[in-house]
């Protein structure tokens, strides 16, 4: 078995926009999706994630580059000849067919005999917990149920890759959380490569083995969910995934991956640069620090300690968010867990505090 289920090599998609200009939806994207993994393409709307998915499915053809599915170049192969199946955003169930006919459609087109279709369809419906729904019509089902039918309709064909185009977008929050876990469970059970498109970073982090963060047609970073969160490689990724602080500064000294950054207001910051990233003295950089990695309570060997004044305190249940103003009018958001039995705040507005931060938690971003 080839290592990669899907491979995009230098794939671009351009098409004429509404006023005749050329819009680049996907710009020279290269990505490798490993066999059997849950892979997400994450980005704001218009970043090219859906277009990329549609190109893998065959609904759009790349303007340049090539897409491989298990090492086979797809070229102009039409959708109905590709070994992939899609779960659509609004499910796209056939309204004139029963659930059973919907699920069996792919097998019927493949020429599987009726008895076998029936057996496998009911098996697939069982897998998505809709056993016995064969005779119903799509419109008689709730959104969540329709979603599961769409899943069964795709999975029943045992595709080499399952493509999911924001399939949870139309569901309410609670159902969404349920379906996220359900999808994850299904993926583990069937062992099929899932390529999942979403604009919801939390969803992507929850479900994926690996994530590709996209913006304006480019893949900015690709890696494990934790890697993307802990070691963002650029400001966009750091900002898009979760919450973070940005401090502007200039490189003062550098030894290996340890970088000393002089922040605005003359503060010094010991920070970590990415492996392989080139930082030179004097270079302008941004330092990003996740609020939950910062603390108002001191700990042994904290690399950076800043004096500041509390500007705002927001209690959100599990945590409390403090906004601290540092020298040079820079602000840091600090997130402290409310593990005190009485959830007493660590500081009040106007209090002078110290903010602690480790070197590994301060990441140097060059772009």
């Amino acid at each position, binding site marked *: 078995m080839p290592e990669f289920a899907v491979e995009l090599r230098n794939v671009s998609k351009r098409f004429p926009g509404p006023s005749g200009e050329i819009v680049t939806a996907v710009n020279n994207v290269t990505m490798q999706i490993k066999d059997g993994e849950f892979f997400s393409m994450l980005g704001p709307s218009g970043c090219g994630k859906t277009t990329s998915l549609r190109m893998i499915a065959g609904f759009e053809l790349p303007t340049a580059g090539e897409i491989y599915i298990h090492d086979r170049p797809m070229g102009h192969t039409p959708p109905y000849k590709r070994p*992939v199946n899609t779960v*659509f955003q609004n499910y796209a169930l056939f309204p004139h067919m029963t659930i059973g006919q919907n699920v069996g459609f792919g097998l019927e087109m493949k020429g599987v005999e009726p008895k076998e279709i029936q057996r496998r369809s009911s098996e697939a419906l069982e897998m998505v917990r809709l056993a016995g729904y064969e005779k119903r019509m799509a419109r008689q089902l709730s959104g969540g149920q329709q979603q599961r039918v769409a899943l069964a309709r795709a999975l029943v064909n045992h595709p080499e890759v399952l493509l999911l185009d924001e399939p949870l977008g139309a569901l309410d929050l609670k159902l969404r959380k349920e379906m996220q876990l359900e999808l994850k469970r299904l993926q583990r059970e069937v062992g099929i490569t899932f390529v999942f498109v979403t604009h919801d970073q939390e969803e992507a982090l929850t479900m994926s083995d690996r994530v590709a963060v996209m913006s304006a047609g480019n893949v900015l970073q690709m890696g494990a969910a934790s890697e993307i969160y802990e070691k963002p490689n650029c400001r966009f990724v750091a900002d898009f995934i979760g919450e973070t602080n940005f401090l502007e500064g200039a490189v003062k000294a550098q030894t290996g991956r340890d970088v000393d950054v002089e922040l605005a207001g003359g503060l010094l910051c010991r920070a970590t640069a990415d492996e392989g990233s080139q930082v030179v003295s004097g270079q302008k950089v941004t330092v990003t620090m996740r609020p939950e990695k910062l603390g108002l309570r001191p700990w042994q060997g904290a690399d950076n300690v800043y004096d500041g004044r509390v500007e705002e305190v927001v209690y959100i249940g599990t945590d409390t968010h403090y906004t601290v103003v540092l020298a040079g009018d820079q602000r840091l958001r600090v997130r402290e867990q409310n593990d005190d039995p009485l959830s007493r705040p660590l500081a009040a507005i106007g209090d002078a505090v110290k903010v602690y931060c480790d070197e590994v938690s301060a990441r140097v971003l060059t772009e």
Partner: protein
Amino acid sequence: MTKRRSPWLLAVTALVYIFLYAPIIVLIVFAFNSSRTNVVFEGVVNQGDCGPFYWFCQLGRNRELVAAARNTLVVAATSTVASTVIGTMAALALQRYKFPGKAYSEISLYIPIVIPEIVMGVGLLVLYSALFGFINTTFGLNGDNRLSLGLGTVILSHIAFSVPFVALVVRARLQGFDKAVEEAAMDLYANEWTTFWRVTLPIIFPGVMSGALLAFTLSLDDFITTFFTTGPGGTTLPIYVYGLLRRVTTPELNALATIWIVIVFVVLMLSQLAGRRSEAH
């Protein structure tokens, strides 16, 4: 609280209904008249084997009329099938694709609906004469081989004015059509052809059906366009009736009209039912 309806409103409504339906009722009643001149109702006819349906039976013995009825049905059937196919394809193309001159072709498609039918009739007549004249001279056709006005030109004309109506009705149906279901079918190994027959057509079928029924009724009672484009062997019922009227009216004519009304009524009801089903989806 129930709303009290004004008696005036009821009276006006009743008048409108009388105005609309009295002629039809009179027409049907006179189909059973025993007077041949059919000016005054002189009691229900009871003659021959058919009793009160004497005039209806007489119709069947009228060769010209039977031929005209057959022509009408042939024209209606062929033009309905052709215009439904073409109109549906036009609607799909306009819905789906962007192409240069799309706005223009969309407008031009609906022009036949708004222009006076007599203009359409004269236009078609001029077109046929010029075209046939050109072809006949170029290929030296003569005698029976000559292209001339007749049943064929009537069918072509009916297709021409029915296509826009079908396209309009089918497009209305396509408005809510989710293109993703076609992609879903293609994703599930159905090629374009199978996708059309298994997914697209079944979903838009109620629209196609009401378009077809509309085309059928339009063709069935068309007079003006037919009048201009018909020729020997192409007499349809409306043309035949017009010819009869210029001579003398007998209850035969009323019998004919009665049958006609029943047919149109049934077709319209079917069209309504198809429309309902389409909304229910």
